[in-house]
């Protein structure tokens, strides 16, 4: 007699298609999947507005089954501010990469946190401008080879230091929940699922600005095989960007 198979994984309910044009091994679809699963678990599909930035992840608005406000590069926190202020009972989250949030739009995310805007900001951090082909961003770590730091890697004297945006936002009074996760191992994904849920709950309880940074793999622009990206994150990223809760409501 055969044992019935237990279903442990399936296409998320809120994913309309599994077709996207991101690279094999990319961490961003895993992050999107995790977010969609939590939205389903919390029963929030009908009241969700995703405000999406511009980067590789701009492939998602066409295939996720929630309303999306597409923002320009760097501007998602301001667009989310307008949305959440006029529809305060909706669940509003932003989706931005490191180039979008920390390079182009740094002042918008800091000001939104300071105003204690009651949306959740999600950062997909891979330390490169992936969509343009792998150039240095403000979060590229020291030593990181990118298209614009190819010969030397990122060198502090030449290129300055990476901005630890989660650490910066944790210092802002209006931010109530700040945490960092990653997509490179099953346990990191489980951790990230937990902190995303806590951040979303902080918004739903009206506590203030909540922020989750997610380290995502980019084998194409890190010049490694997809299978090597978990090690790459441990060796290059988590020293600068440790997975932890930096701030939580009392």
């Amino acid at each position: 007699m055969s044992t019935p198979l237990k279903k442990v994984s399936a296409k998320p309910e809120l994913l309309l298609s599994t077709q996207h044009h991101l690279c094999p091994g990319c961490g961003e679809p895993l992050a999107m999947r995790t977010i969609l699963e939590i939205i389903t678990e919390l029963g929030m599909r009908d009241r969700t507005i995703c405000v999406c930035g511009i980067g590789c992840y701009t492939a998602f608005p066409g295939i996720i089954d929630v309303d999306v406000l597409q923002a320009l590069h760097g501007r998602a926190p301001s667009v989310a501010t307008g949305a959440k202020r006029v529809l305060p009972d909706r669940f509003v989250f932003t989706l931005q990469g490191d180039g979008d949030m920390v390079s182009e739009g740094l002042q918008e995310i800091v000001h939104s946190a300071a105003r204690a805007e009651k949306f959740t900001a999600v950062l997909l951090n891979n330390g490169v401008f992936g969509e343009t082909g792998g150039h240095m961003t403000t979060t590229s770590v020291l030593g990181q080879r990118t298209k614009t730091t190819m010969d030397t890697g990122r060198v502090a004297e030449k290129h300055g230091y990476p901005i630890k945006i989660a650490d910066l936002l944790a210092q802002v009074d209006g931010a109530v929940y700040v945490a960092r996760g990653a997509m490179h191992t099953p346990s990191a994904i489980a951790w990230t699922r937990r902190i995303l849920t806590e951040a979303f709950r902080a918004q739903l309880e009206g506590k203030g600005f909540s922020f989750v940074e997610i380290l995502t793999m980019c084998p194409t622009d890190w010049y490694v095989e997809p299978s090597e990206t978990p090690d790459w994150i441990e060796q290059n990223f988590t020293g600068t960007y440790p997975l932890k809760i930096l701030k939580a409501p009392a």
Partner: protein
Amino acid sequence: MPTRVLMEGSHAIAEAAIQAGCRFYAGYPITPSTEILEYMSHRLPQVGGVCMNAESEIEAINMVWGAAGCGVRAMIASTGQGISLMQESLAELANAQLPCVVVNMMRGQGDYYQATRGGGHGDYRHIVLAPSTVQEAVDLVMLAFHLADKWRNPVDVLGDFILGHTSEAVEFKPLDERDLPPKTWAATGARNRASHNVTPLGAPQKLNLNPGDHYAAIAAKYPEIARAERRVESGLLDDAELVVVAFGSPARFVKYAIRVCRERGMKVGWVRPISLWPFPDETVREATGRARLVAVFEQNAGQMIDDVRLAILGGVPVVPIGGISHDHSGFGVGPALEPAHIVARITEAYQGKAAA
């Protein structure tokens, strides 16, 4: 009996917006638009609206983007310098087909090109309305919200320092807007319906990535707007040998100067474009039917004169009689607006002494 109240232009513009249903405003202080922000910060919360004292012009216009994207009537005001900072968003708001009202209280009239050509990228247009009195500003702000929703496109109201700081008795007459369809396209959370996107990048439907079709559909809208929304006022054209074209506050001074010139026996008339885009080219062309000369008075180095020339297509000569004119504040209230100066410039043109 209609109720008329004495109000400063800036406050009247803000109040007109609120009475037109504006419930979101974001602004960054900048002279001479700041009084709109001040008024909104006090009045909008009284009607359940939201006013954001934003940290930058770019943040302000993108907050407007968010509110407009959720289907709420939203407005922003600034002056040309601040509008310059918003250009990427102003271009893409048109591609996202988001209705909103953008007020530019200019310093002088140097932002005609900025408003009618746009400083942004791509094939977009904004409808541009240029009031010359406080009452007209009230009426055009209300119309601006209507046209923005009707065409799903930003509408600009182009005023100036004088309009913003002149107090006049005004009446608020809300429009009948029952013909406007509900904003079923807005991002509100997909309750009892399919989800959709509000985006400048392509189609609003899910699983439909064809930006080319999307941009072509928007571009096809502009000729329709151009046909339907030309607005213009004119006077004394029947026997006019010289026609003066002017817009906004300076057009009031021009109308007065033309009366003076008429009293002195000169056959002069005037045309005042109210919509700067679409430009009322047919009216301008017809107005010059009997004229031997057209003169353009604008408080800048010569911008609208291009549209006047395009409208007339060489039918008669077109000469500039305005120019840059500021007081020491640099806000565009200059000696060129002295009626005696305008009368002298019109007389010069009438006598054939104006340089082309």
